[in-house]
């Protein structure tokens, strides 16, 4: 693995670990509008495995959110890499 990739990975994970306790729990802009207007939220159609960036079985809220965030980051990384790779292979085959 190239050095800058390692450094970027470490920096991202450190930033995640440091920013989690600082994250605001206030409602965001959209949630604020929904609250202001008094709109009742519909019940969801999907039960996510890690709702609101938490993991059920981990009781410590910091560890729970950190693990969820790290999982999300790694999945985004892998999926993006795979799609990039697939696009690259296609482009190479076309010879353009």
């Amino acid at each position, binding site marked *: 693995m190239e050095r800058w990739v390692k450094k970027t990975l470490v920096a991202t994970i450190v930033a995640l670990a440091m920013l989690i306790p600082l994250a605001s729990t206030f*409602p965001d802009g959209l949630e604020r509008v929904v609250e202001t207007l008094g709109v009742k939220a519909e019940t969801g159609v999907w039960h996510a495995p890690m709702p609101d960036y938490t993991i059920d079985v981990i009781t410590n809220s910091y560890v729970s959110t950190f693990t969820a965030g790290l999982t999300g980051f790694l999945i985004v990384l892998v999926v993006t890499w795979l799609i990039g790779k697939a696009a690259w292979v296609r482009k190479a085959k076309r010879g353009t």
Partner: protein
Amino acid sequence: MLNFPVVIGTSGHIVGGTLIAIFLGPYATIISQTIILVIQAFLFSDGGITALGANVFNMGVVSALSYYVYTAIRMGVHGKEGLITATSIASWASTVLGAVACGFELGVSSTFQPYGGVAMTVPIMALWHALIGLGEAFITSSIVTYTVKVRPDLLELEKLAPHVR
């Protein structure tokens, strides 16, 4: 996930579309944002599956278009000032325009019809996000200026855009 407070009682979160667009161009932005939004909806119940199309438009397509705001400003204002100005205005605009699009979608939906519809949802979404957009602009321009300082080559990557062949 990592919300920043804007005023007491309200927070904002970065969209990040302009940040991606500046380095990779508008096409790659839509793909990247879609990947993120799909994973957020299915894994974390953030955004939601029935709202996925709307979210891809508001935070993917709209923020991808902010690339053209960025390039237009950079053509007029050169150097480091141009970079910071273009990044800040483009990322602020993408937040506000995305929120306006979202406000419109909410306003025409049956759920929000009894609460005043578009006449209510568009202005309040725009007002809150004009504030939240300042956070987006600050974070985006900070990351871009720092990256340009340490890895200026990253700004010169091939951009995937309609006019590029």
